[in-house]
């Protein structure tokens, strides 16, 4: 049984989540308490020593991250619960940290709790949070780093070091400016969604490229682009016009 507390500034949200936990995963999680301010939350954590905290991001004038700053070492798990806050969601996605969106879907809740069971190394969790805070500290702009779960473990990369991604059905190879290559068990589409706002562009069914790393465009039916690592990437015919438009905007 996991002891958990809920920190949220709205009581109906606390009640709703408490109800959901009781109804959908009452056998695994027990709500030990709740708090409606960061200060109260900090006190509750110190007093109750929970293994899990459901943490709202916006708590009155403060954020959930302010709370985490007070703990040099975190010996509890966190599931972020948030309403529609785009920049925060992007940050979570880049840090590979679990989050729930309000109103919380019971199935998502169950899945999030189930993932807690898979014990992860403290180191990895620390890294994830480090990435999260790094991205958040840079304000509501775009995240700068991305955590990538490779076969060897998590990698944390500055986005600008990625030159391009290449799809191999359910795997994706990531080519870095250092010359290294990472293989990830994620589809190219997932990376496209993450990175398209970072000046990445999918020029082909199996290629996602960093527009900042294009050396030149070579004309042709669809043409091709030469990247800074001297690879030549085919551009699909349907993408040519759009790509040229994007390049003109740079």
């Amino acid at each position, binding site marked *: 049984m996991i002891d958990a507390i809920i920190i949220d500034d709205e009581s109906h949200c606390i009640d*709703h989540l408490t*109800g*959901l936990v009781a*109804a959908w995963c009452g056998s695994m999680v027990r709500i030990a308490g709740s708090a409606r301010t960061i200060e109260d939350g900090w006190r509750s954590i110190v007093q109750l020593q929970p293994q899990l905290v459901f943490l709202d991001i916006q708590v009155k004038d403060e954020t959930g991250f302010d709370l985490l700053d007070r703990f040099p070492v975190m010996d509890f798990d966190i599931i972020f619960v948030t309403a*529609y806050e785009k920049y925060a969601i992007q940050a979570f996605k880049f840090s590979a940290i679990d989050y729930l*969106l*309000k*109103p*919380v*879907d*019971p199935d*998502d809740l169950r899945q999030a709790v189930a993932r807690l069971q898979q014990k992860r190394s403290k180191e990895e969790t620390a890294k994830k949070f480090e990435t999260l805070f790094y991205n958040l500290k840079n304000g509501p702009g775009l995240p700068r780093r991305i955590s990538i779960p490779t076969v060897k473990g998590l990698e944390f990369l500055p986005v600008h070091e990625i030159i391009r991604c290449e799809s191999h059905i359910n795997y994706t190879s990531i080519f870095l400016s250092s010359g290294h290559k990472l293989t990830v068990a994620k589809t190219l*589409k997932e990376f496209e969604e993450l990175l398209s706002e970072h000046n990445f562009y*999918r020029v*082909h*069914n199996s290629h996602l490229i960093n527009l900042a790393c294009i050396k030149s465009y070579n004309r042709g039916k669809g043409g091709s682009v030469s990247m800074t690592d001297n690879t030549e990437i085919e551009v*699909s015919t*349907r*993408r040519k016009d759009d790509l040229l438009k994007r390049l003109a905007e740079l």
Partner: protein
Amino acid sequence: MTKLSLLILFIVQVFVCIGQAPIDSLLQKVRQHPSRDSNRVTALLKLADAMVYTDPATAMRYADEALDISEKSYWAKGTALSFRQKGNIYYVFSDLPAAMDYYIKGLKEARPLNIRELDASLLNNLANIYSDLKQYDKALDYYRQFLDISRELGSGKDETIALVNMGTVYTELNEPKKALECGRQGLGICRKKGINYFIPIILNNLGITYNKAGDADSALASFRESIELADRYSNYDAKASSLNETGKIYLTRGDYASAGQYALKSLQIARQLHSAEWQSNAWESLYKVYEKQHRYDKALDAYQQFILFRDSVSNEDKRSALARKEMAFDFEKKEAATRAEHDKKEALAQAEINRQRLIKRGILAGVVILLLAGLSSFVLYKRRRDAEERRKEADLKAKVSDTEMKVLRLQMNPHFIFNSLNSVSDYISKHETTTANYFLSKFAKMMRQVLENSEKREITLAEDLRLVETYIQLESLRLRNEVNYEICIDPGIDPDSTLVPPLIIQPFVENSIWHGLSGKTCPGRISIRIIREDEMIHYIVEDNGIGRKEAGKYAAAGRQSMGLRITLDRIDIINQTRRVRAGVEIFDLSEGTRVEVRLPLELNY
């Protein structure tokens, strides 16, 4: 050749003799005209003319002064006359090229003045020089011009001179017929016009020509007449020549006595004339006569005299021949130089013409090229501008239709939200809180998806179908009866790379559930099939509901068509911007309804 030179000298003399007057009186006349005018020029030239043989150097000075005055006062006639005079003086100096030069200058100056007499004298003098230089064809050419002008002017003397000189040239060219013809014509003119002085000479020349042609009798007759008339007209050169020639004929006939008499008569006249040539000729005949008569001492004496005079003549001859040769050489050199210069000038002129032609052509070509370039750049510019405008127009159109689309999608949202809220409300009223809560959170999740997707103009078919599926799941929770659904995708379509406008078929699915299936008591079924047909994709939505007619009875008027209308508007815009034939067709089945939506197939990559 000796005969020829005799004749030419004679011609010059005739020419020089025109207007002959004592030198003193001429000098007096010059002094009477001290001012530099045409009177002085005329006087100077007359004086120079009179002095040609006696003092050619002084004559040259007078001629130079005349030329200077004429040139400075721009008196063309005076200039021409001065040139002629200088030519005459050079001729006496035997400087034939210089003489020719001045004659040609004079001719150039004289021609525009149209003074035919002047032309005539210059042409004759030029012809004489060519004759001297043995350039007979040129000489004949000038003589003929001279002849033509003489006839034009009606000057019998000049005509005679021309004919006689031509005859001499023809004799030299061994054309006796032509030579005789010329001589006879000249003789006729002289007799008709009473120009007696020339008659003995013409007869002498005719005799020589006859003899050369082998007609000795005619020759003798001619000589006889010449000798008779020479006495009457005081032409002793002709007489000496004719006497000696007659003697030569008798010598060949063996009548030595007659031959000797004629030779002695000739010698007598030759002595009076102080002519070495005639004396030499006479002594030659005499020595031959004495030899035939076997009077050897006299023959030896005559021979010695002959050699003496011959040498002096031949020395003179040799000198003059050498001089002539040199002159001919100089002349040819000069002519060659002149020709070369002329050729060079011509070549230069031709080069200049070519150059100018080239420049003209270059300019023309340049202008043409410029025009063409201008025209083509204008056309290109216009084409480019038109393309730019078309592109802008298309961009604007796309933007407008994008905006319209967005408006329509946003209209979709409230419509969808209110319909869904109806479902939620319906659900809550019929179920307990926990399940109602579950339903609500599912609904929220779907709503989030709808909002995200409606931001985009196009989403992948996979995403669109996932949303439709969520929607069907949610609605089926609400319905009392179970809803079975199936979604089939043509294997020719890759749902991940096919782009569709979001939620195009949602209103049809909604209609099927709310109006087709909700009225049923038995389990409902919805089938969604996506097939590809050429460059189009077809959504086919089929239900086994109660059908449109039956549903119409329950449904409130107008509400049913809301989502449908928006979808039709969207398809309209697609048709306009993409020039395709997208559309919606609704079929009533025996049980239920079938809706077919055709959209252009668009691929992501």
